[in-house]
């Protein structure tokens, strides 16, 4: 089942093309990362999914329906976010849930439950403006899911959060995924994307530049370097093993740079054939941050 299906989506503002022939799919129950530099078109895409903006062309389906009809089952934490300052905490949650079509009494119960979940129960009858910044951020987050949505779209949810609150929120997001919710996460914090997301879409200039499983993308962009650790002194492997271009000692291990066409598995086989005592052999990971900079930076050049 697909939670979101975007097909050849185009959105223009006057002369500027904000989203340009964008296509992607989010499957049900996954945690999907929507990445890209500022101005890449992420927020515009999200606003179209939320039926705040209308597309110029292309097809958009949310939970199998048109965005207008899906609104009530989608939760949204906007990047530009805030709450009524003069309204009480619980009343805010109840009002927002009612706007999503939830009956008042059900909204009341659900609001209380969520306030307890984020330790704000004692603040239920206080005005929003009396809350500290951290508390307001927690309230904003639960406000996006007070109506128990099937799909949750979080635009920069970690922005401005301190490390403790970031950790709490991360835990909450993981909990929601385990509960079977589909989550779209847009953020600049690559470490969190690596920790949380199954698949990602990297946008730049309104188009997709990278799209797929995080592991597959990382593999594709991994520099052909393997890290080898052995108990014995190693000969100069660059001469001995076919396909190894250079061998650099690094903190008791050796980094082997391979020729582009060479499969690390072949190198491992060669090492074993030569009876070299292999204790560790791993394809060096590339941080998502590096891929981001390389892809987006490469495009800018």
């Amino acid at each position: 089942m697909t939670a979101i299906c975007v097909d050849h989506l185009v959105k223009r503002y006057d002369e500027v093309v904000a989203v340009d022939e964008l296509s992607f799919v989010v499957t049900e129950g996954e945690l999907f990362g929507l990445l890209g530099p500022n101005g890449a078109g992420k927020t515009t895409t999200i606003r179209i999914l939320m039926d705040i903006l209308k597309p110029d062309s292309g097809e958009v389906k949310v939970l199998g329906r048109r965005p207008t009809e899906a609104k009530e089952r989608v939760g949204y934490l906007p990047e530009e976010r805030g709450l009524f300052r003069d309204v009480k905490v619980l009343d805010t949650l109840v009002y927002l849930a009612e706007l999503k079509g939830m009956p008042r009494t059900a909204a009341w119960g659900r609001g209380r439950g969520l306030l307890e979940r984020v330790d704000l129960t004692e603040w239920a009858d206080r005005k929003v403006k009396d809350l500290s910044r951290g508390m307001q951020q927690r309230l904003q987050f639960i406000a996006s899911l007070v109506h128990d949505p099937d799909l949750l779209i979080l635009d920069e949810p970690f922005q401005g959060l301190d490390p403790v609150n970031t950790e709490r929120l991360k835990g909450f997001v993981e909990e929601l995924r385990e509960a079977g919710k589909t989550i779209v996460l847009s953020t600049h914090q690559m470490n969190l994307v690596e920790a949380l997301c199954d698949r990602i879409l990297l946008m730049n200039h309104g188009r997709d530049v990278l799209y797929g499983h995080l592991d597959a993308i990382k593999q594709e962009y991994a520099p052909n370097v393997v890290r080898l650790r052995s108990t014995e002194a190693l000969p100069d492997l660059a001469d001995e093993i076919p396909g190894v271009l250079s061998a650099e000692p690094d903190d008791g291990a050796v980094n082997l740079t391979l020729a582009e066409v060479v499969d690390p598995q072949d190198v491992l086989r060669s090492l074993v054939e030569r009876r070299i005592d292999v204790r560790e052999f791993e394809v060096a990971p590339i941080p998502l941050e590096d891929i981001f900079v390389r892809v987006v930076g490469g495009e800018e050049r």
Partner: protein
Amino acid sequence: MDWRKISVIARHEYMTNIKRLGFIIMTVAVPALGILGLLLATLLGGEAQQIGEFLARQFEGSSQATGVVDASGVFSPIQPAYKEDFVSLESEEAAAEAVEWGEVSAALVIPEDYVETGRVVVLTSGSGFGVVEVGDSADVRAFLVDHLLAGKVDEDIRQRAARPLRPEARVVSGGETRGEGPLSFVFTFVVPYVLSFFLIMTIFVSSGYLLRSVATEKETRVVELIISSVRPMELMAGKVVGLGAVGLTQVLIWLLSAVAFSGGLVAVVAAAGAFVVPTRVMVLGVVYYLLGYTLYAILMAGIGALGTTMQESQQLAGIFSFFAAIPYMLSGFLFANPNVLLARILSFFPLTAATMMMLRLPLAEVPWIDVVGSIVVLVGSIPGALWVGAKLFRVGLLIYGKRPTVKEIWGIVTSQG
């Protein structure tokens, strides 16, 4: 349009705004003023008559003295009863100077042959309106008649010739004739007029709340969350209904307290007479109230969405407040003649129609064509306002960080879709 969501929004707006300090103060202040006025009337007792006449006089225009240059000899010396309002001047030059310096509001230059010709030169500053005013003034007439007949006729006749009519208003309603006593003028004209005035104020206060509500929701960014749940049109409709109900609540409290005071305390304050607002004025007042509010509220919603902060939105709304103020600026003329041409023209202009008519209705029989015409204009312009307002609202809500230029606003209004 999802009516359930509109009602949720309306209830939220109503509950939030009715608790505002500004609303509570305003709602209580008006009846409090009423109580104060009645208490004063009670305390002053018999003097209430003078107060009533004094109040009535205040609405008649300027109370400054009039200069008299008398060459005929009929008006010298000035009789004691007129000493306060008329002053004798030496010559036409002195009179011109006094008028120019504002020492007198106008001067009558009476030539030697006045008794034969009736010719009088009227000196006023500024426009020609002053001449008309002086010529029409009952005080000037009385002054002339009194001096002409002094010593020639019997005292009673002289007084009747000077003031042939002392009107006493009695209002016929529901088969009953009420409104005896000197305060009846105040209660039949001034009170409904003041009530109209407050009704109009409520229109602007309510649409001001609306402006504030939209602008702060945009400023705090909560609006993006809301329009991801409801359509902008639904949000706008909910706000217009909810804040309209806030205004109506206020009006209702005022009306009820007015009825309570006039009904309950009238026994105590016999001089107060009856509080009478003709049914026609009341019904039409409510109709204009609703139409005027709807028109302004929709425009305010659109404008509120354009500014990036509350202050900016208020500045943008300033132009509409100016239109709203026009009928007030004309109040002076309206008391003289509620059916003056300019007032009639403004009754057919959408932005001033409701307020103009509300000010005219208590003062006189307004031609039915004006009533029908202004209602048609208002009803007809509301869909147009809705179209423009909704567009500004929808687009304006998501423009953060900068205020759109006039050109951009025009672009939004004229754009397709």
